[in-house]
């Protein structure tokens, strides 16, 4: 029997791996020193932990340890990369290219720059699978373009962009390329050299590390990328991010990177098997279910599905002992359905009907079977209650109906 509740929302966050916690513990107690204290052993012990983590993180993305800048998480990394580049290169240009399905940390950083009159921003569309068009990207580039910021893999639909191709285009044009790789790092092989990435955001809590710690990779050579800091102070992290280092968090991030790198191949294959099993369990027993995102070019642990004629939040309520997330408006503060799923050109109704299953390191085959059974049962129950399902079964084209809106 599976243990309830089941956590299957691993793109939102992940539980801390016990091995990561074990590595962190000494840094809360005997190794509590400030890593910036250069004149005593407490500081040296902390610095040693910070340096080891820098090596562990760099190894995972094929970077050099000194290119890793610690931050409070991927949101800060995105802010620092985007605002820092635009500010530093303001004499060179003021145009930024991003994509409509980026995380809010990227989109809102761009919008803040637009509002402040510091940048003009091009938001690239995506196709039905969530991919950017490389020709669109090429066409969007102007002689004022200073930054391209495109995510590695999408947090909602799991689609993995053609990052190496984007990096190549950026290189040809001499434009800085920032990649928010929060969802990709530790899940799929990420290589800043092979992909021509100049700046890369990552976060610990998506890879079984602690919350509140992340990093920004900043390329040091060919080209050396410069940034204006957004937090001023004691000049930590080569002046790019002041503030006393979160040593236990950093040690945890390092350990989380090392474990996910070591286990990536076997864990990735295991997650793809689980995902296929979950997908089959749903698709073989239900009609009118649709995948959101790319069918194959996607994160191993991500399955985003729309169950037509069933509203997402009501489905979540029915499977309340299973933690997944929905693109339904009713689960968000804005009462708007997911902007990512709408960007795919999906009907609004299907956006309201979307559920994201986020499989992770601690999910089991038994859990997948249980989740598939529960979801199928609940979708059937809600469809029996759905006027839309009834109308569709009667052959009424829902698009031809003149709905009474508020």
């Amino acid at each position, binding site marked *: 029997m599976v243990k309830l509740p089941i956590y299957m929302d691993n793109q939102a966050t992940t539980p801390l791996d016990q091995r990561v916690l074990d590595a962190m513990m000494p840094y809360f107690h005997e190794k509590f020193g400030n890593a910036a204290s250069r004149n005593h052993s407490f500081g040296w012990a902390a610095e040693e932990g910070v340096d080891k983590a820098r090596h562990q993180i760099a190894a995972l993305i094929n970077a050099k340890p000194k290119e890793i800048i610690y931050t409070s998480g991927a949101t800060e990394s995105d802010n620092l990369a985007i605002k820092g580049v635009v500010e530093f290169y303001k004499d060179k240009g003021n145009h930024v290219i991003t994509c409509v399905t980026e995380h809010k940390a990227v989109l809102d950083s761009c919008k803040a720059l637009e509002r402040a009159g510091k940048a003009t921003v091009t938001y690239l569309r995506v196709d039905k699978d969530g991919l950017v068009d490389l020709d669109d990207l090429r066409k969007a580039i102007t002689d004022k373009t200073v930054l391209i910021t495109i995510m590695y893999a999408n947090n909602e639909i799991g689609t993995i962009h053609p990052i190496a191709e984007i990096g190549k285009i950026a290189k040809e044009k001499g434009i800085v390329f920032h990649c928010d790789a929060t969802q990709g790092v530790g899940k799929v092989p990420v290589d800043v050299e092979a992909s021509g990435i100049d700046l890369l955001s990552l976060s610990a809590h998506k890879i079984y590390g602690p919350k509140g710690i992340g990093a920004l990779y900043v390329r040091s050579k060919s080209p050396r990328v410069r940034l204006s800091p957004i937090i001023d102070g004691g000049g930590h992290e080569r002046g790019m991010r002041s503030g006393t280092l979160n040593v236990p968090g950093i040690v945890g991030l390092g350990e989380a990177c090392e474990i996910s790198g070591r286990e990536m191949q076997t864990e990735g294959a295991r997650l793809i098997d689980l995902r296929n099993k979950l997908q089959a369990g749903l698709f073989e027993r239900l009609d009118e279910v649709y995948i959101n995102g790319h069918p194959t070019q996607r994160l191993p642990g991500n399955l985003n599905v729309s169950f037509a004629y069933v*509203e997402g939040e009501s489905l979540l309520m029915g499977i309340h002992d299973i933690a997944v997330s929905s693109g339904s408006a*009713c689960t968000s503060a804005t009462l708007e359905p997911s902007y990512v799923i709408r960007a795919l050109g999906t009907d609004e109704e299907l956006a309201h009907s979307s559920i994201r299953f986020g499989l992770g390191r601690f999910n089991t085959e038994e859990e997948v079977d249980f989740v598939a059974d529960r979801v199928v049962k609940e979708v059937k129950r809600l469809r029996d209650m759905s006027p839309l399902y009834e109308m569709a079964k009667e052959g009424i084209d829902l698009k031809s109906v003149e709905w009474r809106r508020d």
Partner: protein
Amino acid sequence: MAYSDKVIDHYTNPRNVGSFAKDEPNVGTGIVGAPECGDVMKLQLKISDDGIIEDARFKTFGCGSAIASSSYVTELVKGKRLEEAIAIKNTSIVKELNLPPVKIHCSVLAEDAIKAAISDWQKRKGGATEASDESKKSGAKS
């Protein structure tokens, strides 16, 4: 978001789910909301010639609060006279189900559904065959 016990009860054990037969006389159908807004309620009322609501059915596409609001409304209107049913305000649904502010629109929709179903019944009663044909083809019009 935490749901009230009453919302959970109506969601788990919805009252009067279903549809009356298409050709059943004395039935008024109200369909309100729109799929792209994430809420569609269909409320059917069986109304006697002297204007008493004898029975009710609903089907709802929407969040748990929308389902609960429509389920509750089917219980609320049964046995009521038309003028009493028309007078039902969304605030009494909010109160009964303890709906939070973001879910008030669910109760508004349920109130609209009552009015739409009664209006449909009145049209059909008035012998307007056109209206009943229309409601078969495109139920949302009323």
